[in-house]
């Protein structure tokens, strides 16, 4: 057996677990999922072909639109915070001075916290009436108390606000990107008399665009899948609700609710595909946009 043939076989053998996994847990379930969108199935009776009626049902449901709007608010809100504040904080942390190690640890640590624990921890902070910590701050400032979690339309912003506590996961990636920049760029800029601020948007930002792009796409995909925070904040979840007047419904929460509370596998599959398509579209839009704004990128990323 020739060395080339041997190499070919060995390579295929080593990647074969991935190929099998891709078929078993990727292609095959997706095909089944496509089929499921056309049937009604509740595990008890045989699947029944219903044509497009699952699509009609889901797309006519007001809860679906609420979940969609909530998911988009959370996705764009948190992505914006991660992108803008994340880069700024990372640039601030990149230089070593008094306490920067401590700040780094404090900002990074919460991103390791379990989502359910974080949401439960925030319960007393966003609590209703005078017992909520935030409401106590508001009354000290002479402002009226808010019903953060039960007022429809407000709860979703609490989730956006919580992304401050997950800022660290983006900061650490940006920080690594900034530290990877050749220091001579900054020295050259300083000799030319660039201020810290000018260095930030003339050197740092253009040079880490590929990292920004990657992290933003991952952030958006993560945002679209938001589930545990919404589930935990809607204290009614054990009895089947999704927050007061479904104010905490997100697409994945809705999918969960359809599949495992209503046992309507077909409609749940429709929601699954919706999440899939939206992820795909948003990723493509970002790639397009970034091509227009990218200044260095390609030469940098080998």
């Amino acid at each position, binding site marked *: 057996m020739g060395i080339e043939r041997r190499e070919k076989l060995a390579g295929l053998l080593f990647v074969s677990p991935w190929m099998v996994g891709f078929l078993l847990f990727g292609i095959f379930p997706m095909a089944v999922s496509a089929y499921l969108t056309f049937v009604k199935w509740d595990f008890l009776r045989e699947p029944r072909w219903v044509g497009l009626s699952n699509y009609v049902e889901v797309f006519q449901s007001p809860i679906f639109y609420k979940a969609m709007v909530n998911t988009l608010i959370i996705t764009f809100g948190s992505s914006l915070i991660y992108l803008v504040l994340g880069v700024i904080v990372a640039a601030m942390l990149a230089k070593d001075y008094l306490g920067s190690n401590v700040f780094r640890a404090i900002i990074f640590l919460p991103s390791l916290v379990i989502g359910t624990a974080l949401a439960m921890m925030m319960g007393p902070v966003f609590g209703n009436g005078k017992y909520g910590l935030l409401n106590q701050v508001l009354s000290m400032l002479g402002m009226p108390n808010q019903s953060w979690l039960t007022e429809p339309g407000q709860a979703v912003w609490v989730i956006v606000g919580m992304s401050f*506590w997950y800022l660290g996961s983006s900061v650490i990636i940006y920080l690594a990107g900034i530290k990877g920049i050749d220091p001579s760029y900054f020295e050259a800029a300083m000799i030319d008399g660039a201020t810290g601020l000018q260095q930030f948007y003339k050197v740092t930002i253009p040079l880490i665009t590929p990292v920004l792009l990657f992290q933003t*796409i991952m952030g958006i995909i993560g945002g679209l899948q938001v589930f545990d925070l919404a589930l935990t904040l809607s204290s009614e979840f054990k009895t089947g609700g999704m927050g007061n007047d479904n104010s905490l419904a997100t697409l994945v929460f809705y999918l969960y609710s359809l599949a495992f509370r209503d046992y309507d596998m077909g409609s749940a599959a429709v929601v699954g595909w919706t999440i899939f398509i939206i992820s795909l579209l948003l990723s493509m839009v970002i790639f397009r946009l970034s091509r227009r704004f990218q200044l260095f990128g390609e030469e940098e990323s080998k």
Partner: protein
Amino acid sequence: MRIKKGLKTGEVFVFLFLALLSFVILVPFVYLFTSSLKTNAQYFKIPIEWIPSPALWSNYYYVFVDLKFYVYMWNSTFLAASSVVLSVLSSSLIAYGFARFRFPYRNAMFIVVIATMMLPSQVSMIPLFIYFKSIGWLDSYKPLLVPQLFGSAYLIFLIRQFYITLPREVDEAATIDGCGYLRIWWHVIMPQAKPVLVVSALFVFLASWKDVFGPLIYLSDRSAYPLAVGLLYFTSPTSNAYTLILVAIVIALIPTLLFFILSQKYLNKGVNIANLK
């Protein structure tokens, strides 16, 4: 002179900004912790008692031992540790295949690996649930662990990017000495790749530790729940002991802290690898 002065005010601004951000981030943690040491009556007192007296450290023993919170902790640790071993080993082997061997459609396949990384898993959730249900895997850890045997796209990508930077000369020398491909992977490649493997382990551990959806749909026996889900269903035995739930949350945070300290050494090194692309 002027430049120097400008820098100084800038630094003060940066310091204040970071201090404010850190303060905001820390307040809920501090509030949670001090509240966890209170009785219900102390907890509902206004204004807030930031340093509770008396401090009820016994709350912790009660929740951890008497209310059996350690069971969740053990389940989470077991699940996360098993996931790390399975996923890192399989992904490393697959990455070795992509990095070191030429075979037909290799690049096309690698692009598919990257593409699957960007796709949400929810679309295949329902069929997988039905599938695992039909082969009787519900109420076991199999649906959570067995898929890990087939590698994870993100890790394959990450590790492969690292492997291609390793010098081939060492591999070749080992081949001449009569080492097979598997032995080269285990004895030559793996030891050199320690930083990227540690970072991969960290990612898998965290993903498993934080997962809510999987355990929620596949497990129904509460004593098998991991921490993230067990916490959701954790209720205090008496209605007037709300602070016990806060204790449970703090306990759920502690492993995170340990994990952070343990991973510090490798984190900065490792994340740089993540950006090599």
